């Protein structure tokens, strides 16, 4: 197998770990790939670089390829998601004055119960709640709309969700431009360390298994290079499995902390990998199961029903036809390429390519190619179930 050089773009976040680990621990090399990793200043620039063919693949917010398939956002090229790189990993944080009002009203900051946290937030916010997210097409935004919408806070009447680049989030909160934020690791923890925020809720508590980042490539590229796509899928599958092993968390955080990658304190990064978070400047600690997952259940299987959920939310929010949006979205999550890439490896794949989203409240056995496979809980906080085949 000849060594092929590929350029992958990423945003310096903890969940870029599969790309970094693939390069540093040798999973890429094992597949005959030499990865050139290029950090990007913004999601829009990263998206454009893939869409215009300047780079082969990117660490991408799961809703971005779906939004592009729906014709939303600046660029309309079709991108495909080869695999899901990670699930969950974001946290909602509030400004200190808001946290103080919530505490005064009796909220315990348990960092676990989405319903009580949401009600306390709405009660303390006054007539308008302004929340910063990293990008308009992100799980951050979708989960906020889902969570607060279910509790009666309607956008845009009472809820403003605005884009603030994560490195500027703490500053925007301190300046009073926003009341709260939802960001990926390590920016939530960093805002706490800066003494400007308290963490209210991990997004895991809103949806237990939300597809967060995907590996995105241009559709044309995937069609023209099925072998390279397969090698990348296998590389990311092995990197994810390595990252899921607790014993590797220290090594992973040291790798990520390097100046050429995140250039941040390794201890701060380790908190996100282990799910043990400092939630307030006073040093209160909370542990979250499944805070950030790299390889749970079927690993990075890109469930079509996850794409459907994202499409349904985006379509409802932007007034697009739901059925058409759904058809476009499910083609983007390439379960076909994923299955082909991992056939003949030790990876066990589910028998179905879609599932009811939100139906599993405990780890559950489902039919797989070799027998049964255990899927992690994927429930929504309000107990609703999303059926991708329903109209």
């Amino acid at each position, binding site marked *: 197998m000849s060594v092929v050089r590929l350029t992958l773009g990423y945003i310096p976040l903890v969940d870029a770990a599969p790309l970094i680990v693939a390069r540093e621990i040798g999973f890429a090399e094992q597949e005959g790939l030499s990865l050139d990793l290029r950090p990007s200043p913004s999601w829009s620039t990263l998206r454009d670089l893939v869409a*215009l063919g300047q780079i082969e693949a990117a660490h991408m917010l799961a809703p971005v390829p779906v939004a592009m398939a729906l014709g939303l956002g*600046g660029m309309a090229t079709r991108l495909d998601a080869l695999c899901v790189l990670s699930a969950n990993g974001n946290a909602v944080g509030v400004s200190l004055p808001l946290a103080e009002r919530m505490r005064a009203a009796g909220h315990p900051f348990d960092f676990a119960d989405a319903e009580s946290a949401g009600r306390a937030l709405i009660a303390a916010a006054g007539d308008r709640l302004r929340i910063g997210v990293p990008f308009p097409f992100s799980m951050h935004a979708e989960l906020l709309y889902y969570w607060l919408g279910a509790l009666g806070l309607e956008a845009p009447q009472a809820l403003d969700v605005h884009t603030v*680049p994560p490195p500027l989030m703490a500053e925007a909160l301190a300046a009073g431009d926003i009341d709260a934020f939802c960001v990926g690791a390590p920016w939530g923890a960093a805002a706490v360390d800066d003494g400007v925020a308290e963490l209210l809720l991990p997004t895991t508590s809103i949806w237990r298994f939300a597809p967060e980042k995907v590996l995105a490539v241009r559709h044309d590229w995937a069609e023209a290079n099925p072998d390279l796509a397969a090698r990348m899928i296998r590389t990311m599958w092995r990197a994810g499995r390595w990252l899921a092993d607790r014993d590797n968390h220290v090594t992973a955080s040291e790798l990520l902390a390097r100046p050429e990658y995140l250039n941040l304190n390794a201890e701060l990064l380790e908190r996100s990998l282990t799910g043990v978070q400092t939630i307030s400047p006073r040093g209160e600690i909370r542990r979250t199961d499944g805070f950030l997952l790299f390889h749970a259940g079927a690993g990075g299987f890109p469930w079509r029903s996850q794409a459907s959920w994202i499409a349904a939310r985006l379509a409802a929010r932007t007034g697009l036809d739901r059925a058409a949006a759904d058809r476009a979205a499910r083609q983007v999550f390439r379960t076909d390429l994923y299955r082909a890439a991992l056939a003949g490896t030790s990876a066990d794949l589910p028998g179905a390519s879609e599932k009811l989203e939100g139906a599993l409240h405990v780890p559950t056995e489902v039919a797989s190619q070799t027998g049964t496979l255990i899927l992690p809980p994927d429930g929504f906080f309000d107990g609703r179930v999303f059926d991708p085949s329903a109209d």
Partner: protein
Amino acid sequence: MSDRLSIVVVEKDRERALLIVDSLRAAGDHEIIVISEQTGLARRISERNPDVVLVDVTSPSRDMLEELTLASSPMERPVAMFVDRSDDSLTRTAIEAGVSAYVVDGLAPGRIKPVLDAAITRFQMFQRMRAELAATKRALEERKIIDRAKGLLMKARGLDEDAAYALLRKTAMDQGKKVAEVAEALVTAAGLLS
């Protein structure tokens, strides 16, 4: 319809902003507004209701502009990133040069092209300047380290300056390395040994 376009330039650096404005003026009689403030960027831009927004692709604030692609009220005009569908090389050239343009719905590509061409030329110049600056800095640093290595050799081996440099150059040639690399290794080793 007049040919006059309303253009917003998002740029923090005042000098760069002035240079961009100059280039755009040369491309036509347009109304040009510079926004340097990052907070509330999307709101500031939609208040101005421009036809075209130009932004540096290396700026993290660029993501704030993506919101403008979703018009949230009937009064707002949705924008899209400028992509010439007949020929995406212009878009690619722009991104490579480091500038991206957001354009309101329905504006003819022919009206944007002169503006984008002017912006591309200017941003290419910024890139060249940045590359030249980095190269000059590197050359200066290399010279400093070579001087220190020469000094070390002169002292340790009792050589004169020319002989010290000749020795560095010969070693570099023998090892297939650059003179600066050999000098750096020597300076590092000397630091460890002292």
